[in-house]
């Protein structure tokens, strides 16, 4: 049921160490970057995959749930926007707090991504699970792969 994200591996893998991540950004494998691509570590990160009958968009939006994320599509451009607040521990109210690291994104965000042509936006579905929003965009019937019968001569 659950499968391997490494199918999304379209290039050199993202290493553990920040140095290599930094170098990857500066030397982007010679390939052209998507015009709307963002540096690694941006929030939320997005993967897009394709099957024979649909395009699936995975929005890695940790800390959000269904009501916090707005997904819209116009002219084949998908936009996800929302806002993520900083986590405040419930119990300790006014106690002094010392911050050591603040790496997590906080505040409003909006990201856009161009999708392939031929999607049936009317039948799009989205669901949220474990901080990942999956948007399913079925292909229009006429664009699905078709088997062509070969008749005997």
């Amino acid at each position, binding site marked *: 049921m659950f499968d391997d994200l490494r199918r999304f*591996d379209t290039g050199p893998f993202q290493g553990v160490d920040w140095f290599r991540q930094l170098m990857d950004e500066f030397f982007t494998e010679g390939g052209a970057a998507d015009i709307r691509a963002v540096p690694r570590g941006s929030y939320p990160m997005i*993967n897009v995959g394709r099957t024979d009958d649909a395009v699936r968009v995975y929005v890695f939006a940790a800390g*959000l749930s269904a009501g916090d994320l707005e997904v819209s599509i116009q002219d084949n451009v998908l936009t996800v926007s929302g806002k993520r607040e900083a986590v405040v521990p419930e119990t300790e109210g006014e106690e002094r707090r010392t911050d050591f690291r603040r790496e997590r994104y906080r505040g409003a965000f909006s990201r856009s991504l161009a999708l392939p042509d031929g999607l049936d936006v009317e039948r799009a579905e989205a669901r949220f699970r474990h*901080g*990942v929003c999956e948007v399913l965009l079925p292909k229009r019937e006429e664009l699905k792969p078709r088997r062509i019968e070969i008749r005997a001569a």
Partner: protein
Amino acid sequence: MNDVAQRDEGASVPTSREQRAEALLPPVDIFEQGNALHVIADMPGVTHESLSIEVDNNVLSLEGEVRIEMPEGLAAIYAEVRAQRFVRRFTLSHEIDTDAIQARIENGVVHLVLPKKETHRTRRIEVQPA
């Protein structure tokens, strides 16, 4: 530790260096408040079952496997997340009470509370008037 922290002695924890290299580094917030350190980590797609938190030799390890459903035959068009796991480690200081660490995960966000030992708690010292 609670049940999140205790599970998984190594069943899904990769051992080879190759596998480790393919892990993502989750962004974290760390702050100190109320006699405890708080670690908050973004690990989207990680579930209660696929999260493993361990303290070994004063090193805190957070590891989680991204569990998202992908249909057969899915081909990537565009990918920013290119690994299946999140891994991050921190060295703890000696005043952390490792037996009292608590963890929970909600919507792919891990929240760890690392209480300080009783003996190391902040004490207010009264200043006597002269």
